[in-house]
């Protein structure tokens, strides 16, 4: 009941949550600040006393309570070994940490980490703390905070908060918040309530796709009351029905998203290999360069990962395109018409580029920050949410594809490229500078690889091995789609991605990969030119 009382007393206080950091201390220097004792109590608490210590802080009704608990939850409360003072660590990187006084908010400067003793928090306590904080936030006037709090209450309802929750439910609440809280209460009732409450709870939970609701129903099925178990089972069956649809949609989304990554990685190759016929084993490393450009951009613009990412799109294209030109001029142009030697030479280049990155930058992966607007997911319903970063990648892949299509179909360069690849001698005699076209085409393909790198930096590791992981897949997509056909690459990438994601859940990731590979080999046996073979005179060229 302690928490209950405190919650009521904090209703007003919680309005001040945002002002907390600058809240002026209400105590003169001579008067002992009760906060000091509360924090010391928390710092000294054994794991079993933690609950009581947290409760005491909430109970105190102190306007700074929220900021203390936040700091505690974020692992930022420490104790000065010498003075015993509890401090908030503002910056905990390196040898000297910046600390502040939790009572006054005053910055106490830097102190060696050897002098600090962290106030321990673990998963179990953090879980409880999240519940307590969510309960506070439910009274927030900020609808965003309130909604997040309602979301967090799922599965965290316990005996002391049930009464205030019911009171809250009597008030006027936004529908989303009400819906969440009713579910949360129902889950609690199903687990702890009497027979009637359980029966009512099952009615509320029927149709809910939330995983916690399913967990509670599953437990009820295993419970001792046969009537409850039966109705819980019925509820689960109806939920499963709904889930099936969602799962299918989810798999499709996963497939499209993996497919779009494959398309991005392969589409540059579709130009250099597909159109020009150059087997470029360093294609993966051009992708890697694009990813490193993103990292470099973020280093140049600290604190603005979003802007850096957007600027990386042209920058990544340029860096990879220039690298591509360098490779074309220095090696590939001398090996024209000798595919085996081109393969070996470009493989060598790929190793050189990898080792170059290892030596110059670091063998370790670089951390690329995901901008705020790209993290998290778009929630369709409780069982289906689309991860935002992948949604952006799908969009980006389509935009890049459309752009390339435009260049190849509607521009002078595209026309020249097609002319040169169909009949080099004829094109030259028509006044097309074949060498220039070669350079431009290779730069275009390489630049697109750089774009893929920018996108991949949001999904996978940015490290020296990045390219290696995609080179085989890229060739696979291009060959499967039909060499020289951009549409083929798009369709092949999306198809392979989807097939892979359908196979993965029941065959396992390793076997799924093998099966896809075998499938492609069989397919190529039947149709050696891929999904969309080149037709007409170009095919013979």
């Amino acid at each position, binding site marked *: 009941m302690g928490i209950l009382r405190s919650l009521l007393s904090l209703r007003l206080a919680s309005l001040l949550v945002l002002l907390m950091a600058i809240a002026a201390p209400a105590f003169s220097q001579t008067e002992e600040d009760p906060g000091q004792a509360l924090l010391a109590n928390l710092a000294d608490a054994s794991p079993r006393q933690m609950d009581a210590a947290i409760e005491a802080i909430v109970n105190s009704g102190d306007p700074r309570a929220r900021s203390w608990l936040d700091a505690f939850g974020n692992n930022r409360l420490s104790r000065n070994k010498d003075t015993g003072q509890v401090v908030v660590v503002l910056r905990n990187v390196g040898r000297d940490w910046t600390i502040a006084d939790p009572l006054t908010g005053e910055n106490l400067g830097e102190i060696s980490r050897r002098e600090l003793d962290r106030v321990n928090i673990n998963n179990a306590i953090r879980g409880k703390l999240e519940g307590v904080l969510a309960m506070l936030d439910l009274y927030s006037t900020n609808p965003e905070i309130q909604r997040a709090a309602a979301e967090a209450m799922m599965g965290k309802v316990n005996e002391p908060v049930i009464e205030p929750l019911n009171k809250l439910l009597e008030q006027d609440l936004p529908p989303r918040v009400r819906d969440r809280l009713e579910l949360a209460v129902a889950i609690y009732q199903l687990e702890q309530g009497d027979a009637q409450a359980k029966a009512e709870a099952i009615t509320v939970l029927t149709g809910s796709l939330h995983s916690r609701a399913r967990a509670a129903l599953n437990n009820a099925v295993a419970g001792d009351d046969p009537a409850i178990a039966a109705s819980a089972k019925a509820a689960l069956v109806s939920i499963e029905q709904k889930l099936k649809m969602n799962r299918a949609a*989810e798999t499709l989304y996963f497939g499209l998203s993996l497919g779009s990554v494959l398309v991005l990685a392969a589409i540059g190759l579709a130009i250099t290999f597909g159109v020009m016929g150059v087997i470029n084993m360093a294609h993966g490393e051009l992708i890697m360069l694009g990813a490193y450009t993103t990292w470099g951009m973020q280093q140049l613009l600290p604190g603005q990962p979003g802007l850096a990412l957007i600027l990386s799109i042209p920058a990544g294209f340029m860096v990879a395109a220039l690298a591509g030109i360098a490779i074309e001029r220095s090696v590939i142009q001398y090996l024209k018409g000798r595919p085996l030697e081109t393969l070996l030479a470009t493989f060598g280049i790929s190793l050189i580029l990898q080792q170059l990155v290892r030596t110059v930058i670091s063998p370790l*992966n670089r951390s690329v920050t995901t901008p705020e607007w790209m993290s*998290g*997911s778009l929630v369709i319903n409780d069982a289906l949410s689309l991860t935002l970063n992948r949604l952006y990648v799908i969009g980006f892949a389509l935009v890049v594809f459309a752009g390339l299509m435009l260049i190849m179909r509607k521009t002078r360069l595209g026309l020249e490229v097609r002319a040169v690849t169909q009949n080099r001698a004829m094109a030259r005699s028509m006044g097309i500078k074949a060498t220039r076209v070669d350079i431009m085409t290779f730069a275009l393909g390489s630049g697109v690889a750089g774009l893929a790198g920018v996108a991949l930096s949001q999904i996978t590791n940015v490290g020296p091995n990045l390219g290696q992981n995609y080179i085989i897949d890229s060739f696979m997509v291009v060959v499967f789609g039909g060499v020289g056909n951009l549409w083929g690459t798009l369709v092949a990438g999306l198809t392979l991605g989807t097939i892979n994601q359908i196979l993965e859940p029941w065959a396992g990731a390793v076997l799924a990969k093998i099966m896809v590979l075998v499938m492609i080999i069989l397919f190529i046996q039947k149709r050696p030119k891929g999904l969309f073979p080149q037709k007409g005179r170009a095919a013979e060229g």
Partner: protein
Amino acid sequence: MSIKKHVKLGLSALALSVSFHAMAAEDPIKVGILHSLSGTMAISETALKDTMEMLIEKQNEQGGVNGRMLEAVVVDPASNWPLFAEKARELLEKEKVDVIFGNWTSVSRKSVLPVVEELNGLLFYPVQYEGEESSENVFYTGAAPNQQAIPAVNYLKNELGVERWVLAGTDYVYPRTTNRILETYLKDMGVAEADIMINYTPFGHSDWQSIVSDIKTFGSAGKKTAVVSTINGDANVPFYRELGNQGISSSDIPVVAFSVGEQELSGIDTGPLVGHLAAWNYFMSVDNDANYDFIDAWVEFKGDDKAVTNDPMEAHYIGFNMYVEAVKKAGTTDVEAIKEAIIGVAVPNLTGGIATMMPNHHITKPVLIGEIQDNGQFSVVWETSSTVAGDAWSDFLPGSRDLIADWRAPMKCGNFNVKTGSCGASAGEQALADAE
């Protein structure tokens, strides 16, 4: 050359010249370093090479060992397993090193084993591994499964009340063996088959969408669920990212990892990972003066304020100090003498305890469970009350239950079967047989 020096020094410095004689007469102790500096494993192994160079430098500043300086001989096996064997042969035959510190992956160790046994070398192996091995010529300073996996599972079960288990790993020998051990262990504790989900992924797996979604579904069956992850290196970053994106927080489904350390975390934004767990025998954040001194020395050596330390580095620290102590104790670098002297050698570790070399060539280690923090470090939430001795042969695998390893006379055997009373093939022969 010594005559020239004498002229230079003059006769007055008699004492000095005597000590100089002693120094010059003895060749340096050659320490072979067999870590990949290029290729895929360079990400992990480069730091270990640097650690060894730093330890050797520090030891030389203190005058070396027994009046002899140490000299590092660095080779690059380039993440290429057969090349590991060739480079080991080069170190032992051509460079005539006294000891080798090296390897990361189990497959590279298996490739080196026959060589060090044939040429009677010494190898210190610093990485946590699957066990099921004890060679006369290898000292395992990383954790065996009973020093990492089993205590971590106990923690999840007892402290977090976990009843449903996902064993997720990369598809190679270490995760497969560890998961086999864990599966038997869990079943022995009464966990039902249906409450264990096992999943393997290829190296460098980057598309975790459907697997994470599966884990989410598996975790909604009403029982507290945890993921025990033996996912290797690079694949972890996209895995954790996907967990965050699909909204799985550490208080819903905690993940305990055996291959994620400070170095792996330095490549990611750890904000969404706060609260996920790792089990190691060392964390950079351990509050201990010896540890802080080690970190300070490392930061200075690397000239990088952000340089991190990790568990295998501590293992090399312990292994190196054990070797130094053994050389002091034996008074020589003779391999046979060292093998005898090193058993029982005890040196301080970096977490405030003592590491002792056991007769099975494994060492005693504390087991720590840490939670990921937002600064890329771990905070220790649990540790064993005392150190745990490494067990070469797991008690939870049918074939290995009856085997023990003891390299003291008179047994001198790495896989003595207590039931039949016989000693099997050596680890190197075993590795060769498996390879064929």
